[in-house]
């Protein structure tokens, strides 16, 4: 099962390697991991997308909680939540492909943020499936480069991950 784990961690050097080291040492999967400071610069927030049986996910959250620098851990995928990912995709845009690419970007509510004679950079946000479907919808031979941020996630409504 796919899980999205959000955590707050002391914003100190080495914090990221403690988390990633834990995953590799214990053989847990990381599908994506994002990290950045919060509004309180002494804290960082991570979103980790992982897969595993219930037992493994239970161990992952327990082991994360055990790390001395980790302040809080929540499996946000256990209840209503929102996930977003940012993708920047550079595509070849010449001749009739140029019009078509623009049309596809519009359909997926993407924005063209850079254009040359022969290429576009399209910015797209959404959940993982939306970004995947965009890639599926365009002619893949036109893709020059893609970069994805990995997922960030947040619980809906009253579910708040804070100190």
């Amino acid at each position, binding site marked *: 099962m796919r899980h999205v784990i959000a955590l707050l961690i002391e914003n100190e050097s080495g914090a990221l*390697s403690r988390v990633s080291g834990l995953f590799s*040492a214990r053989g847990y999967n990381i599908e994506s991991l994002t990290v950045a400071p919060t509004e309180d610069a002494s804290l960082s927030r991570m979103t980790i997308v992982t897969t595993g049986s219930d*037992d493994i996910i*239970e*161990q992952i959250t327990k082991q994360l909680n055990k790390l*001395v620098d980790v302040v809080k851990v929540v499996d946000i995928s256990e209840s209503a939540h929102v996930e977003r990912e940012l993708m920047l995709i550079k595509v070849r845009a010449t001749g009739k492909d140029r019009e078509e690419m623009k049309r596809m970007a519009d359909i997926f509510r993407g924005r063209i943020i850079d254009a040359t004679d022969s290429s576009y950079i399209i910015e797209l946000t959404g959940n993982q499936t939306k970004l995947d479907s965009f890639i599926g919808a365009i002619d893949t031979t036109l893709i020059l480069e893609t970069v994805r941020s990995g997922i960030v996630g947040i619980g809906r409504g009253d579910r708040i991950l804070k*100190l």
Partner: protein
Amino acid sequence: MVLTGAEIVIRCLQEEKVDYVFGYPGGAVLFIYDALFQQEKVRHILVRHEQAAIHAADAYARSTETVGVALVTSGPGATNAVTGIATAYCDSIPMVIISGQVPTAAIGQDAFQEVDTVGITRPCVKHNFLVKDPADIAVTIKKAFHLAKTGRPGPVLVDIPKDVSAQSAEYHYPKSVEMRSYNPVVKGHQGQIKKALKLLLEAKRPMIYTGGGVILSDAAAPLTKLVRKLGMPITNTLMGLGGYPATDKQYLGMPGMHGTYEANMSMHFSDVLLAIGARFDDRVIGDPAHFAAEPRKIIHIDIDPSSISKRVKVDVPIVGDVKEVLEELARLLDESKHEQDTASLATWWKQIDEWRSRDCMKYKNSDEIIKPQYVVEKLWEVTGGDAFITSDVGQHQMWAAQYYKFDKPRRWLNSGGLGTMGVGMPYAMGAQLAHPDAQVACVTGEASIQMNIQELSTCKQFRLPIKICNLNNRYLGMVRQWQELFHGGRYSESYMDSLPDFAKLAEAYGHIGIRVDRPADVEGALREAFSRKNDLVFLDFQIDQTENVYPMVQGGKGLTEMILSAEDL
């Protein structure tokens, strides 16, 4: 008050009432050694290899209720320390290790004797720090001690660059530290403890299984009281020996791979299993699927939530300090009006006594050749069962655990988790320093002892009168046993040729060495050794080369599938 970083380090150790630091100097820690030189409160034990410094400090902690402290230099000093740190980590031993680092400006430049100590040790410490400012040293060391001894204990490393120890800063030692990210649970959940008690009292075939957590939280006394009151059978793991008196009739011996028949059968066929500060290790329960196949309710008390339901599913988890929880459990038992099912318990004991009557620990003694079990039995007699016993790793370790009956906690020091050969002598050093008047014996093998043999020199310098009982079978015995049983008797590299004359070797270091060849001389040699209160005596027992450790549950097998003796094969 303004002090140098090095002076601050030593001041902090004084504040923490550290008696001994075990260490080895080098370039990156010269300022710290200089500060050490100019005071008398903290004494330094100069080992002969950094690994031994960590082990000795670890043993100091194991045999007392304090935090062990070690000091090593950067680069090779730190890498030599890693085995010791990992050993302490696997057994949750509270320690603070201070390592020197190259100057801040040189970090990352592949400087002389630079390694990424924080990176290398990260997976084998509870936590570690790199201190970049002398003003941060005091609070960091305070945090290190706090982390080491609270919650699930463990080693904490503080890496200090040379310039940081040389520069000055205002010194102030905080009385306490708050860490918003670290708040271990201490008290167990009341409702859960009540549930556990009810289950226990209603149990028809209860069994209590305790591990190192009982020793670490100093819970042997409340445990013993509670277990006696409940009248239930109990087993202590390799890490938990001495948690309950081994000579008591409710004690069934050790469980697991080389545990007793009665302990393993009772674990397996219990209907309620109370696990305390233990972790259902593969060496204890064998194949987890086989173990889970027999229905039983499990209550698990542990300070570390991640130890609960990790290898077996637990019905009543109780997170908290073992001692606190046991005291609460005892209090609730006193108040409880719930009747215990004593009739079923009596029937259960009848079954257990039947298992016991197999007398699985009996061995064939000999007049001709020394049996290792006999040596340990005599060691127990000669020391009145009251010594600190350390061991290395191998067959001798199992014989020591099986035949020395530990009645008190913190008397048995061994590397249970990592299984590190070479801990035996440094462990004895740490225990002897912590208990100068106590009898301390190291039960070892001719292979293990050679992994830190250089420490005979440290023992001479600091006059440590430990007794080394070398169960010399001229084999990497435990390896040989597995090769005999599981690899068709192909003894690949398990025979060690060209062994030294250990008695002479001990003499060369200025100690007394005695070689013992005949069973009739075993007791006399032991008495002679322990009568020499001020001398280190190295007893080199030439034992039966082919003796194996039984009973045995093979790796991957279930607890009830035991080989009781060689005749079972």
